[in-house]
Each structure stands twice: as C-alpha cells, then as structure tokens.
C-alpha cells in the first residue's frame, strides 16, 4: 500500500503519481529503460529500491551475444551514443537473473519488465517463451534497435507490416501484458503504432534511440564507435521523442511509456502531457545513478503542487489542443 491508496482515509495526501500501465500498477511513472544497468538481478533491484516505478532488463535473445567491441558507449556533450550491439547472456541465463530480480524486488511493488529481440518474428516468440518461468510483470518487445542493422537488417519498427508480424508472433505465445518498443526513426510512426496495436500490443514504448549517429575522432581519422554508428540518446533527442509520443497518442488508445532524453520532473511531465502513461529513464543515470528516480519523482510532485495538478490522469495528453 502506498501513499495514494491512503488518500481514501480523507485528507489529501499530495499529488497522485501512481499509474496503470497495461493493467500493471506502478507507484510512480518512472521506468528504468532497457539496456541501462544491464540485466543483473542486483542492479535491477537496486534501481527499483531507489524509487523506479518499474525496471526493464536489457534486451535478450535466445542465444547469448557478445555485442560489439569497445568503444561502445560514449558521452558526446548533449547525450550519449551507443552501439553495445545487444550483448546479452541469452534467454536462459537472463531468465535466472530475472527470477532473482523478482525475488529481490518482492514486496516493493516495483514492476519488472523483460525485454526481448530476435532476428525473425519466431525468434522473438521463442525468446519470450524462454523467459516465461520468470513470471515478469510485463514483456517489452524491442523491434527498434538501430545498432545491429548490419547484422539484423532494417529494424522491424520502421514499417507497419514487419512490426505487426513480430507483435503477432509474440502475442500467440504470451497472453500477459505486452509492450512493443517503437523507433523514433520511423517516418510514419503513427501507422506503425496502429498496426502493432491491432496485432495485439497492450502498450507501446516510444521510443528507442535515435539515428543512428556517428562521432568521428579527428586524430584517429575514424568513427569512434567500433560499430562506426550508434543510437543517440539523452537530452539531444527529447523534442523528437516527445513528438513521437504525441503522434502515437493521437493514433492509438493504449498506454505509452514515453522514453527519450528525460532528465527532470518537467521533462517527465512534458511526456505525460504529450500522452504518455509512464516515462522511461535511461541516459539520465549517467553520473547521477539511481538517485535520478527519487529526484525526478520529487520534482514531478513539486511541479504538480505548483500547477495545481492532483493526479497524472488529469493531465495525460492534455497538450492535444
């Protein structure tokens, strides 16, 4: 039981920050984004204990993947650029970590989200099957990683058809709450959103990293990332992520995890006004670490008091004028 529930005892307990994400109750809208802090039970649970409403594990595939050699993750002045290349220990090992994470999170009320990817719709489905024993609260399907194009081809998330195929394949093996993670690079993201929802998604994460981008080192005379290009995240991408959330919210009627460049309570509220139900927090952990969750929650609470907002439900999508 958290503060919001106690509010039915009478006196106003302060702004209501809890939200309903595809049937899963989050104590606050902040979600640790996939790929941040990996999939280790210890780090996921730590982010949860520190105040995330939900935590997402790093995307995993059926088989383990080494990912790209270093350099893979860099700070370039206005955010991050990364080409980790979806390194992961494979679904079996990931399942064990998720089970441990679930145990460590027991009783905290923090939701646990698994994330999967694959080369084909069937591979996505198989990865989800392999994770079932962990009984996570939600599954996120990552069809939008821009860093493995050389290997995996054009991301599924760029076109409505392929995006829907993956969703259907996963839906056919998994009946729990299902999020699909879209790409801010899709020129017609609203259409992709519509077809993914028709194919059975319960919610959408909007979105993954932008680009890809490239940083060249002038002395080395070559791109810094070993993969040459990488996904751009952090403050630089916020206006584009917000526009994506706005467009998607206008197109479909499922909850959205607005993700991209959020660093403050004001940024989080912007996402919610654009139509998001929850808000992904990724690059903001650089340097600051898990304290980011407490800080953003406090800032959000303060802003709500200042603006006379009693509940996030009150302002969700209110910028659609």
């Amino acid at each position, binding site marked *: 039981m958290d503060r919001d529930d106690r509010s039915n005892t009478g006196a106003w307990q302060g702004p209501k920050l809890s939200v309903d994400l595809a049937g899963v109750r989050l104590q606050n809208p902040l979600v640790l984004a996939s790929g941040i802090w*990996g999939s280790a039970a210890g780090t996921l649970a730590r982010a949860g204990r520190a105040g995330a409403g939900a935590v997402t594990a790093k995307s995993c595939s059926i088989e383990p993947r080494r990912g790209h050699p270093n350099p893979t993750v860099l700070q370039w002045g206005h955010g991050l650029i990364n080409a980790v290349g979806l390194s992961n220990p494979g679904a079996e090992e990931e399942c064990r970590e998720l089970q441990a994470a679930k145990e460590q999170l027991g009783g905290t009320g923090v939701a646990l989200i698994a994330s999967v990817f694959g080369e084909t719709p069937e591979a996505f489905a198989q990865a989800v099957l392999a994770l079932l024993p962990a009984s996570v609260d939600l599954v996120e399907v990552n069809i939008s990683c821009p860093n493995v194009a050389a290997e995996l081809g054009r991301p599924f998330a760029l076109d409505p058809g392929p995006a829907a195929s993956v969703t259907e394949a996963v839906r056919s093996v998994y009946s729990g709450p299902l999020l699909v993670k879209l790409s801010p690079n899709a020129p017609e993201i609203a259409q992709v959103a519509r077809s993914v929802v028709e194919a059975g998604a319960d919610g959408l994460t909007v979105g993954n990293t932008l680009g890809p981008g490239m940083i060249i080192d002038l002395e080395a005379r070559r791109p810094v990332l070993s993969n040459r290009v990488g996904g751009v995240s952090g403050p630089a991408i916020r206006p584009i992520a917000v526009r994506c959330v706005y467009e998607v919210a206008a197109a479909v009627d499922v909850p959205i995890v607005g993700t991209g460049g959020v660093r403050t309570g004001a940024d989080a509220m912007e996402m919610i006004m654009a139509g998001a139900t929850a808000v992904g927090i990724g690059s903001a952990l650089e340097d600051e670490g898990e304290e980011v969750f407490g800080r953003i929650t406090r800032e959000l609470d303060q802003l709500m008091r200042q603006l006379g907002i009693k509940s996030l439900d009150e302002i969700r999508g209110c910028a659609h004028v």
Partner: protein
Amino acid sequence: MCSDVYTVYRVVSRRQESEGGASLVLDGSLRADPGQFVMVWLPGIEERPLAVMNDRPLSLTIRDVGPFTHAMCRLQEGDRVWVRGPYGHGFDVRSRRMLLVGGGSGIASLTLLASRSLDEGREVRVALGARTSSQLMLGWRFDELGIPVLYATDDGTVGARGTTVDAIEPLLRAGWPDAVYACGPEPMMIALGRRLRGTDLPLYLSFERTMKCGFGVCGNCHLGDQLVCRDGPVFEGEKVLRVLDPLAE
C-alpha cells in the same frame, strides 16, 4: 579539442616491466584521485580501463594479457593513446599507517595512492605479489618513493615463497597498519578479506571488471548490485566480499 570524447596523449617514455608488462609516461597530466581509472582507446584495436599509475605526468602500467594490453605494451615513444576520464571513486584515506597489497596489474592502482599519502605525511608500506619474480611490476616506483616493499612469489624467486597475504602476516601481528588497501586478482582479495575478518582493520579493495561505458550506464561492470566504474572501483572490503566470497556470511 580534437574530439568531444578523448584527449590524445603521446608516449614520452616507456619502461619495460616484468616479462609482458610496460609502464608508459605520457606527455601531459590528468588530475585524478588515487584509485581512479581512465578509459584508453587504441583506434582499430580496443578501448579498456586502466588505472592512473601517476597523474603528473599521466602514466600507465600495463600487463600484457590480451589484444589491447599487448598493443599497449608495444607502443613506442611518440605513439598516441586516446584517453577519457578519470572515472570512479578513489581510495578514502583516513589512516596514519597504510599497508598496500598489490598483485598483477592491480599494482598500478596503488602507486598514486602511495605517493599522495606520503605527501600527506602518512606512513606507507607495501606488499607486492606475483607468480614468479619476472612477473613483478612497479617495484622500482615504490623504491623511488622510498617505501619499504615486501615481495611474495608463488615460487619463491623473490621475497617470501607464498602469497602477499602470507607476506604481510608479521606486520599484521605487530599491529602495524591502521588500514589495508589492496588491488589484485580476486582470489587474492578474497583471501585478504578472510584473513582480516574479525579484526577491526578497515580494508579497501579496488576491483577490475570488464567495462563498456565507464560512467555508470551500461551495467557491464556490475559486482552484485554495485557498479565498479561508478560506485568503485574502490569498495569497502566487507561490502563486496559479501557478494564475492562464497564463504562470507
């Protein structure tokens, strides 16, 4: 200036360490706390974490264990290295009499601690270990600083036969140190933790884990619920040994 990411240094001088090891003095300084590390990129090869062996001028000591360290050890005067950082938290020093225990490439994490602590008027002793004498590194640096060194090798080719944990036994019994600072192979650090369990000697351990970002985002360097790059690389012994040592409660 030449990129948003790295500062480029040139090798000013190179010193052969043990077989397959080298120390490099670079052509500039980098303000760092003892125990902090940098990410070093060799274009076309790899990028890896290395301890700041000395900060003015920036100096690195590398043990050749794989492709990156091998390339580092072969650098010559004038060659360039790409450096970002420093990252992490260094050693928290409050003691008067400091016992440093180093093994393998971990020794590089202790030299800056030693020289800074001397500057601050503390007493420092050090124990260095390796499998065999030819693998010992950086003894010369402690000699330069005038710090007494206890050596331990598995084969007894230099110093006491055995481990550094054996070598420091007399100092521990004599109640000499106020605190112990260590960096080396994890088995060494576990052994040290076991030896000190039950004493009230503070123990600080510096860890080496594979890293991608270095600034607390990717999760690659985790050690239980800790991130070595951000929460470490230096930890209070108790805290991490609970995760690492199967025999710890």
